[in-house]
């Protein structure tokens, strides 16, 4: 089983949406996929038709000391999601503290699932400097904008692949930054996820973009990304 996470260079670059889309695309390529939401915002499930009001999740299970596995939802054969669940702000603090203190917690849990899945895709908070759960494949996600360009100058792990999301080829500045990164950033993933209205529309319909708009450019880009992930051994 391979673990994968998307680390936003800053907030709002679209990691949660991409994780949902990528999970769906990998499943379309006949992979067994588990989507794991480690974020208290609990947004991942919204992309996969989970009810907003559903409080169940692994964090709720931990609080009630019930089996965390039973909080998972089966979306389709071999496509599962384990949401964080809905906790109040006060309830979230003990969970956040234990996550940071017991970093071995989640790798152990995932190891117990390794025979059931080919991929676990983990949605983690961007603000954390290190991944809470270290993954086999960690992809940094950015927009081709000046803020991300400046942030890339800080010392970051150099080997992390860099993926551009929400790319609009009509905008000159984005085209310029993409060109510059192609020449200066060997870690750049050689494909783009284009800005596409199908992406927010898919969330508005509570579906991953590959399901809601399979012919859209963004869906095709994500399918390419899934193939690229499969090629990384």
């Amino acid at each position: 089983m391979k673990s994968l996470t998307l680390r936003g260079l800053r907030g709002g670059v679209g990691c949660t949406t991409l994780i949902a889309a990528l999970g769906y695309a990998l499943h379309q390529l006949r992979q067994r996929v588990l989507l794991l939401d480690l974020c208290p915002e609990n947004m991942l499930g919204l992309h996969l038709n989970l009810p907003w009001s559903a409080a169940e999740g692994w964090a709720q299970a931990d609080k009630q000391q019930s089996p965390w596995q039973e909080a998972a939802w089966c979306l389709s054969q071999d496509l599962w999601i384990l949401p964080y669940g809905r906790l109040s702000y006060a309830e979230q603090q003990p969970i956040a503290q234990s996550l940071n203190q017991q970093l071995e917690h989640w790798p152990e849990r995932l190891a117990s699932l390794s025979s059931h899945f080919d991929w676990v895709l983990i949605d983690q908070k961007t603000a954390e400097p290190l991944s809470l759960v270290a993954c086999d494949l960690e992809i940094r996600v950015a927009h081709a904008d000046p803020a991300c360009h400046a942030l890339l100058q800080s010392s970051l792990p150099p080997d992390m692949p860099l993926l551009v999301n929400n790319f609009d080829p009509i905008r000159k500045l984005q085209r310029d930054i993409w060109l510059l990164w192609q020449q200066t950033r060997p870690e750049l993933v050689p494909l783009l996820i284009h800005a596409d209205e199908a992406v927010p529309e898919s969330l508005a319909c509570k579906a991953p973009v590959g399901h809601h708009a399979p012919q859209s450019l963004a869906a095709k880009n994500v399918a390419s990304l899934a193939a690229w992930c499969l090629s990384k051994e």
Partner: protein
Amino acid sequence: MASLPPSFQVADASSPAADDITDLRKALQMPELPYVDITTQNAVRDVLKRWPLLSELSYFAEQNTP
């Protein structure tokens, strides 16, 4: 089917007789000629001229490259 008369046929580029560039390099004792993508180099230079932030960060990156 039309075909070129023998006097017009171009020699196979991989045959030794046709490799003028290698012969010239050897005669002038020149090193290997790496491919230079001038179009892209010019495009990158224009990008850095166009946007001061990108230019400054590029300078910073160059100064800090070991």
